[in-house]
């Protein structure tokens, strides 16, 4: 499969990237290309120009800034999965990044591309929701920040404007509790049939003081399973309660259906993986 014809430029700075973007009507940014190129090969996307931002140095770093970790848009999944700061401060993000696609995909794919593309089945949007990340964009009118709750609007649709570049994502570091990511991956593509990110903080008596659960692969975009959170908040997670609460994981969404997983099957897997994720987060918390 061959994409339709397009022009190609490389940008070496954010300013250059933005001015190239303004110079053409239907230009797109490309870095790893692992979300965009497959769409272009199938001709679902046919941009007139690709602006390659991969060599922009300032977008390649991961740094700790007080109680946040700021990750440049061009950091690859492999980089994120193995970065010591992230492994320590945001362990579920490291876990999820290490399970994106496969080795080759993790070598090329970037966090910025992943979030901007907003594939319902990709892993990192759920992690951004779990941690309450902020997406930092840059446009002709200057910088703009998007809280993650306002970022994902639908399948392959975000609040990012066509004139903006996603430059970094910052994640607040939780000061308590523990978090995990559980995933049932499609065996060929590595995309999530169901992915569940869970963060739980309990008191000494095992009462849940705070909980967040976010799913991907299930609905039209990643979402917080607030019904699950509410069912468990302030209570002790007995097996019985956890089982009951996990079945609320698909309460608020229209569940996707495809050749690999019917709606009912996906609903069932979502409940099972929600239970597993919360259980593992709890076990981690009490260790």
């Amino acid at each position, binding site marked *: *499969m*061959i*994409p*339709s*014809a*397009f*022009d*190609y430029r490389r940008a070496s700075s954010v300013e250059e990237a933005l001015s190239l973007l303004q110079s053409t009507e239907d230009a797109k940014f*490309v870095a790893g*290309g*692992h979300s965009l*190129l*497959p769409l*272009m*090969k199938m001709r679902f996307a046919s941009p*007139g120009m*690709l602006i*390659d931002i*991969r060599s922009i140095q300032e977008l390649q770093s991961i740094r700790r800034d007080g109680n946040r970790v700021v990750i440049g848009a061009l950091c690859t999944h*492999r980089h994120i999965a193995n970065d010591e700061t992230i492994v320590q401060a945001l362990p579920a993000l490291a876990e999820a990044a290490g399970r994106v*696609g*496969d*080795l*080759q*995909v993790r*070598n*090329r794919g970037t966090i910025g591309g992943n979030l901007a593309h907003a594939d319902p089945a990709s892993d990192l949007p759920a992690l951004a929701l779990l941690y309450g990340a902020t997406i930092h964009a840059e446009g002709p009118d200057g910088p703009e920040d998007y809280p993650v709750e306002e970022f994902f609007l639908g399948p392959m649709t975000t609040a990012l404007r066509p004139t903006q570049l996603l430059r970094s994502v910052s994640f607040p570091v939780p000061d308590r509790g523990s978090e995990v990511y559980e995933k049932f991956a499609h065996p*060929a*593509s*590595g995309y999530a049939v169901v992915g569940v990110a869970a963060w739980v903080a309990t008191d000494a008596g095992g009462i849940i003081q705070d909980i967040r659960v976010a799913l991907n692969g299930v609905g039209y975009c990643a979402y917080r399973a607030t019904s699950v959170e509410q069912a468990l908040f302030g209570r002790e997670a007995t097996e019985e309660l956890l089982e009951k609460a996990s079945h609320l994981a698909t309460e608020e969404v229209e569940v996707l259906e495809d050749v690999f997983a019917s709606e009912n099957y996906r609903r069932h897997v979502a409940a099972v993986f929600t239970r597993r994720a919360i259980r593992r987060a709890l076990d981690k918390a009490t260790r």
Partner: protein
Amino acid sequence: MAGKALKRMVKLDVNGTCYERELEPRDLLVHVLRDELGLTGTHIGCDTSQCGACTVLVDGEAVKSCTMLAVQAEGCSVTTVEGLGKMGALHPIQEGFWEEHGLQCGFCTPGVMMAAVGLLAQYREPTEEQIREGLEGVMCRCTGYQNIVRAVANAAERIKATESAEIQAAVAHVGERS
């Protein structure tokens, strides 16, 4: 937009040789390797970045060449299966596949070996789990993967043995001088 107008000269470093070709931005790396440079060892399997048959190394990292534009590889160093070893002087991964019979039909083999080389650059002494995880992105419909995993472990041992022999030789050399 006329493709012809978008053609440009692109310099590619493949297996240590510099090639210059007139390419369109939309030309995929795998097509350029096979059709322009005649390096047909890199196979096209699914063409949807799932099967890994087209895996090559770009700056030492395993990459699916069906999901990379050739223009994106300009300025990078690309290694294909042809760049691994030669008859009589095989790369340790090729020796490993030979020794452990890591293939049957052979279609996936170039991609699997390139993914394995990328994996061995990351882990010097990989566990079986790390090998299996590193091979997630390549699909083999014949072997059931058992012999592939043995082949990669065999290669890891060969690389380690070669390195320690080199270190011993260097130590001996220093000893002779002193």
